[in-house]
């Protein structure tokens, strides 16, 4: 069992990286179910449970950057439990989803903890140290690998029931609260952009963009096109004004 748990853990680590980097989608339940089935020696149950979980997660994609319950752990733990406990694939869904929600909460914490590392990266950028920047990115992927591997290893090695108890210990208010905080996080990124880009003369355009989205519910592409229109108008107005100045200058020279 130890070796099998370890193999599932390694697979979870690889799939966990693929969810964010690589994006070949070997991390989807329809594929991971098959691999877990192969490792645990029941290919057919793995295939069917994976497919069942695939349909559960069909709509749960990171739309507009909002993270759904973790599809990697959901798919792997779900299929592993279906095989190990000989349960119906539907029951596996009931175990997989709360697990996946809890794991997504933990991912929020990883993204928070990794923020201070960016100051090290700033230093590397300033020193034009490309190797340093590369190291930080490899470190990020290594962190994800270890995290997913541990999360997948423990419940499979120690059994389904004990794992479910651990999930129940993590209170719902904390998981939901972390989700609320995750929704607010983009404000910090936008504020950093504003700090760099915003000047008094540009405030008007910020307001226009906000109104188009908040009141008129325009998609971002439409808002960008409005921005392009204003920018083009501004550019050519400036250009023709400069042109006039030059022409007037030429005439005075003539006289």
């Amino acid at each position, binding site marked *: 069992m130890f070796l099998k748990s370890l193999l599932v853990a390694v697979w979870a680590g690889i799939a966990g990286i693929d969810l964010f980097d690589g994006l070949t989608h070997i991390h989807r339940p329809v594929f991971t179910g098959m691999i877990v089935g192969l490792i645990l020696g029941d290919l057919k149950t793995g295939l069917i449970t994976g497919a069942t979980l695939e*349909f559960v997660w069909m709509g749960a994609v990171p739309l507009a950057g909002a993270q759904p319950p973790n599809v990697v752990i959901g798919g792997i733990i779900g299929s592993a439990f279906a095989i190990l406990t000989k349960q119906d694939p539907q029951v596996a869904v009931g175990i997989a989803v709360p697990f996946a929600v809890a794991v997504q909460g933990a991912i929020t914490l990883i993204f928070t903890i990794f923020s201070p590392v*960016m100051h090290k*990266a700033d230093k590397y950028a300033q020193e034009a140290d490309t190797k340093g920047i590369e190291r930080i990115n490899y470190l990020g992927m290594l962190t994800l690998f270890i995290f997913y591997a541990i999360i997948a290893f423990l419940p499979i090695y120690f059994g389904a029931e004990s794992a479910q108890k651990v999930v129940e210990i993590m209170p719902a208010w904390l998981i939901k609260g972390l989700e609320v905080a995750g929704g607010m*996080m*983009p404000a910090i990124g936008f504020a950093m952009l504003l700090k760099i880009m915003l000047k008094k003369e540009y405030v008007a355009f910020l307001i226009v*963009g906000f109104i188009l989205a908040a009141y008129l519910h325009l998609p971002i592409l439409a808002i960008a096109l409005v921005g392009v229109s204003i920018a083009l108008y501004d550019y050519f107005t400036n250009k023709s004004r400069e042109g006039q100045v030059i022409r007037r200058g030429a005439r005075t020279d003539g006289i």
Partner: protein
Amino acid sequence: MESSYSYTDTNIDKVISKRDLNKMTWRSLFLQASFNYERMQGCGWLYGLIPGLKKIHKNKEDLSNSMSMHMEFFNTHPFLVTFIMGIVIAMEERKESPDTIRAIKVATMGPLGGIGDALFWMTLLPISAGIGASMAMQGNIAGPFVFLIMFNVVHFALRFGLMNYGYNTGVKATESLKTNTQSISRAASILGLTVVGGLIASFINLSTKIVIRTEGNEVILQELLDSQVMPKLLPLAYALLMYRLLKKDFSPVMLIFITVVIGVLGHLIGML
């Protein structure tokens, strides 16, 4: 960063080859390797550009300036990022000012997000995974592979195609616009800030659950805010608060910590 500084070495040489573009396309797969709440994809984005930047900026000072700018906040759709990479590399090659390049990055990252969601999450994934999973459901082992092949043919064709398309677009655009950098930088900033205004209203999720009860009447505060005051008031207020705090030299890490505390406590007492 008030002034629009440009590079010390402003010689324009064509140094980026097709091989370099392909190399950067492969590296674009690691866009989210160091994802975090402060810069999101910023550091992974820089990782992808490194081979190009090293070739373009031969002196250390310029490379350092360029790298520092690309370390800033960046977030777009991970499948379509190569389009922006292509444009940006073309602009770097033409030694456009970092201010202009930044504004183009910011203006393109939002719209691509919407397009990518529609293309990948709402179309390609449901179709390919639907076909693959319905085969697997019957116990057919070909199912998972049919899914992977269908998905990745489109995925990689777009990834490589968009890098070249973005680069060619960038080269043409910068050639025709080279005349007046000041006006271009200004126009790009206008575009960028219009988009940021839209992003604030679209991508910050913050609403209140407070219900005010008075003599049998129930007023749901969020509905009142949306209809009587202003939609998306709370996301705007929170973004402006973060902006004010940044200007007061609060570090982004501190702001992330504050946000986690507000989110968890706010939810616990039933406000959020």
